């Protein structure tokens, strides 16, 4: 705050502009990931086509792993609780927990993205179009496929997206947050359109996501502008201080908060801003869906938590009732619409919407337990959802992934292990005890009950029961129906198998022995967000 006022004072006097003070060490993980992204672009420009994949994958891995280690060191060495980069970024416990989660989940997603198949028919060439610019069904497409091109641009694009995701929950002012939102979203729009098979569906998803995403960004920006008008600052702490002072126009404040919330809730996929989720999740290449369903969700909720816990905490009597409504709508609509789905990716998309509703109960709690519960839930859900999407990439027939539910009939007899693992993920989504899903739900529901939101929790458990119905239906199809004669085959590439194994391990461990991660989330939230 003192810095920025100095800056404005200096500007007003027309004197020298002091050089901004950047704590490079504190924001290292973000810089590293974005740096690797830039390096990836250079690799695309200067390294020969045949070598690109071999270069891109290791640097992406090293970048993410290095950033993760850096994050751990930051949290472990000096337990930071301060702002960095002239107050634009917050470096505190919750942020580091979120960034660590995003980095681990991104690493697992990278396993899926880097998977090129074991060379068998139907799996070769990975998940991405050989050449995105070639029109679907055209000769150019055929040529590029035959030449065995691979679209290695996905790696730098993914790294840019992850960099944005890391920055989004760390942003301590609305403008930085907006920039992070765009850095995160733009590469994702592109990545959505790169599916190797069913390309038209994929491109349609990309266009939809882009259009709706652009709208929501505009909402976010407009909300930020109104809040600036209200408080004279885009800093979250200043907005909070202004609300405490009870000065300024309440109309500007409430309208600003409403518009800002639309932008934030859109990314989280809360009803009624969820329309993009099923289409995009279905159309996007499945590894990208996994990335969005885990990392983007974590990042979006991180930003929601920061905005509502830092800037708008004192306004909570105004936004809580609305958030109750959004949370109830999201849980109920997600669970009910999912029942009618027949495509597994769409089904998981609606499941993700329902889970966003459960997560919002933790946001509504506005307490330390609510914060730590939400953090734990995000981590738990992220692992499970990547695992589930990884399994979907493994079940294939001639036309690519066999994502239609009917094609999975009798998978339990054909490949008991794969079906069993998927069933376990579904039970975790349903929140059966001894899975991470249960621990997470318990954590947020407990926080909500402690803050007197018991009716919300009742709606939550009822929608869990509804949601259980469609998870169980998938299990019924896999195990209790007879396999078709020409059913899909299970193709398990080594990287995909590793991703599934990691997702499974996390789902079991966070369900049976959640204590260490709960402790970590608890410690991370001791001082809440920095202001």
């Amino acid at each position, binding site marked *: 705050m003192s810095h920025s006022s100095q800056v404005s004072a200096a500007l007003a006097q027309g004197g020298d502009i002091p050089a901004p003070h950047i704590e490079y060490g504190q924001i290292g993980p973000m810089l590293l990931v974005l740096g690797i992204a830039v390096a990836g672009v250079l690799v695309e420009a200067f390294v020969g086509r045949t070598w690109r994949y071999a270069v891109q994958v290791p640097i992406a891995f090293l970048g993410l792993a290095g950033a993760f280690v850096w994050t751990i060191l930051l949290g472990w060495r000096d337990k930071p609780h301060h702002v960095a980069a002239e107050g634009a970024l917050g470096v505190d416990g919750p942020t580091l927990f979120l960034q660590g989660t995003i980095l681990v989940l991104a690493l697992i997603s990278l396993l899926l993205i880097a998977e090129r198949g074991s060379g068998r028919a139907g799996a070769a060439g990975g998940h991405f179009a050989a050449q995105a610019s070639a029109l679907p069904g055209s000769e150019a497409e055929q040529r590029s496929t035959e030449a065995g091109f691979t679209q290695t641009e996905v790696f730098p694009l993914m790294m840019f997206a992850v960099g944005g995701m890391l920055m989004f929950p760390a942003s301590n002012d609305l403008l930085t947050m907006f920039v992070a939102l765009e850095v995160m979203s733009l590469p994702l729009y592109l990545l959505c359109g790169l599916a190797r098979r069913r390309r038209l569906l994929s491109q349609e998803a990309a266009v939809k996501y882009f259009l709706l995403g652009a709208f929501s960004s505009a909402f976010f920006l407009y909300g930020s502008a109104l809040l600036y008008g209200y408080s004279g600052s885009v800093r979250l702490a200043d907005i909070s201080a202004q609300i405490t002072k009870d000065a300024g126009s309440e109309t500007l404040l409430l309208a600003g908060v409403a518009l800002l919330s639309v932008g934030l809730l859109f990314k989280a996929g809360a009803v009624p801003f969820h329309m993009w989720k099923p289409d995009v999740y279905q159309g996007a290449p499945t590894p990208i869906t996994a990335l969005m369903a885990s990392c983007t969700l974590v990042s979006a909720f991180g930003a929601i938590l920061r905005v509502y816990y830092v800037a708008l905490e004192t306004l909570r009597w105004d936004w809580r009732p609305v958030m109750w409504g959004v949370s109830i709508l999201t849980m109920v609509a997600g669970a009910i619409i999912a029942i009618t789905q027949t495509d597994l990716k769409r089904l998981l998309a609606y499941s993700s919407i329902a889970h966003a509703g459960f997560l919002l109960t933790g946001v509504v709690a506005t307490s330390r337990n609510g914060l730590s519960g939400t953090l734990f839930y995000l981590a738990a859900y992220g692992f499970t959802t990547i695992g589930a999407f990884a399994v979907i990439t493994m079940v294939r027939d001639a036309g690519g992934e066999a994502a239609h539910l009917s094609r999975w009939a009798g998978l339990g007899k054909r490949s008991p292990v794969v079906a069993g693992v998927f069933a376990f993920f579904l039970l975790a989504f349903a929140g059966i*005890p*001894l899975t991470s899903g249960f621990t997470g739900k318990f954590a947020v529901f407990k926080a909500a*009950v402690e803050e007197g939101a018991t009716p919300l929790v009742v709606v939550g458990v*009822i929608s869990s029961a509804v949601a*259980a119905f469609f998870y*169980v239906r998938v299990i019924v199809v896999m195990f209790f129906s*007879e396999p078709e004669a020409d059913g899909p085959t299970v193709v398990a590439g080594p990287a995909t198998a590793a991703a599934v194994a990691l997702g499974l391990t996390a789902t079991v461990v966070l369900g049976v022995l959640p*204590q260490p991660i709960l*402790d970590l989330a608890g410690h991370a939230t001791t001082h809440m967000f920095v202001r």
Partner: protein
Amino acid sequence: MSDFPWLSVLIALPLVGAFIVGVLPRERETLVKQTALGVSLVVGALALVMAARFDTGGARFQFDEKYWWIKQFGVHWAVGVDGIALTLIVLSVILVPLVMLASWSEDDRSGGVDVPAKRSVKTYFALLLTLEAAMIGVFAATDVFLFYVFFEAMLIPVYFIIGYYGGAQRSYAAVKFLLYSLFGGLLMLVAVIWLYPLSSKSTADGGLGHGTFMFDELSRMNIDPTTAKWLFLGFFIAFAIKAPMVPVHTWLPDAAQQSPAGALVLIVGVLDKVGTYGMMRFCLELFPGAAKWATPVVLGFAVLSIIYGAVLAIGQVDLKRLVAYTSVSHFGFIVLGIFAMTSQGQSGAALYMVNHGFSTGALFLLVGFMIVRRRSARIGDYGGVQKAAPVLAGTFLVAGLSGLSLPGLAPFVSEFLVIVGTFSRYRWAAVLAVSGVVLAAIYILWMYQRTMGGPKAPEVEGMKDLTAREKWAVAPIIAIIVAMGFFPQPVLDVINPTVKQTLARVDRHDPAPKTTGNVAENGARP
């Protein structure tokens, strides 16, 4: 040996067994079955040794262990048994090996009805062992959270057993079973979560000053009446679905009709007991005020279950459905005894849980044996079985008579205690409940008459009598039913101290100064 972690070992052992069975080669079916049976016998023996060391005059919870599990949530791995939990654990560990014996052949598991394809043997036995671990855990848990975990975890193996090994409508029945139970369980989850902030309130506000899920601490709380009523409902609805009580019983007949007979013994004989056990342990002791508030309504539903279940049982044409409806009626008696809140009523109810497990278990096993032979569960497809298979018919008669509470067989003692105990406080309920006894005679004897008596049906011609394996599966149960019909006292001695504590907690005293012991002895004399 006093520090030996009896209960943790009892829970872990079947799980280890399930794992071993799971990794055995698929083709070695006999080895799989022998391993599973061996593990369950070891578990049974261990549990019986533990039961023998139980001190009826000792502390309420014995063999207790307590370690932190999830400190952040205030959750302990806390196990321990009181008299009632102990008898139910013994019931479970006796039934599991017998069920395995009765599930030995492919026919036993498929219920003899259209098998689409050969189904995995080892999965079935691994699921049975997993279920055994969950059953022991659910009765042993003294931490409410842990209880909930076992309560839900128990559903999964049953769901797969019904869905994978059941009859034609198996997936419908399995999903219905799971959704009913899950829905009830989730309502209970809200109540469980709610307990934590209540317990963290200061003692002046009726809390404990620290958040916990330990049952014995929670039962010392003074929850304000309105909250207590909500919490009571959360627990009660879950248990009523589980028990099952009318009108939330409809999953049971479907599950019963589709499930393999062996697993059915465990579903009705043990799993459903979690409902009535939970009512007694949690609904009454955690929320005594609310329990008293709800008593008239609960008694009404109990009486309704007794009569409605019995009437529907009379009308059934499917053997398994029939026995399932008789259970609805019997569970009505158990709930009646629990909520009468007299020492006879509750002792009777607790004893009834054990007796019903054995008597219905025997009935389901025998029905299963019949279905394997005739390949049909329709009553109309039988007739004159006693001429073709006299031993089968004879044991069926004994099991059936125990189902109608014939004096001299175990269920009589408990049913008598329940009715006497209810009569001393709620005369109307007892009078109505007695009609259930009359109806029981109709449904059991009429079923016997139609299947076993009369002229031999052509299809029954040449029906084989019980094999040695089948005799081994059912004989121990018949022996227990007869023995407990004459000597219920040892079991009552184990149960009674717990009942006394429950009643002390709900602050109810018997209206007439009769001791339970006397009544039990009277009841034992046929």
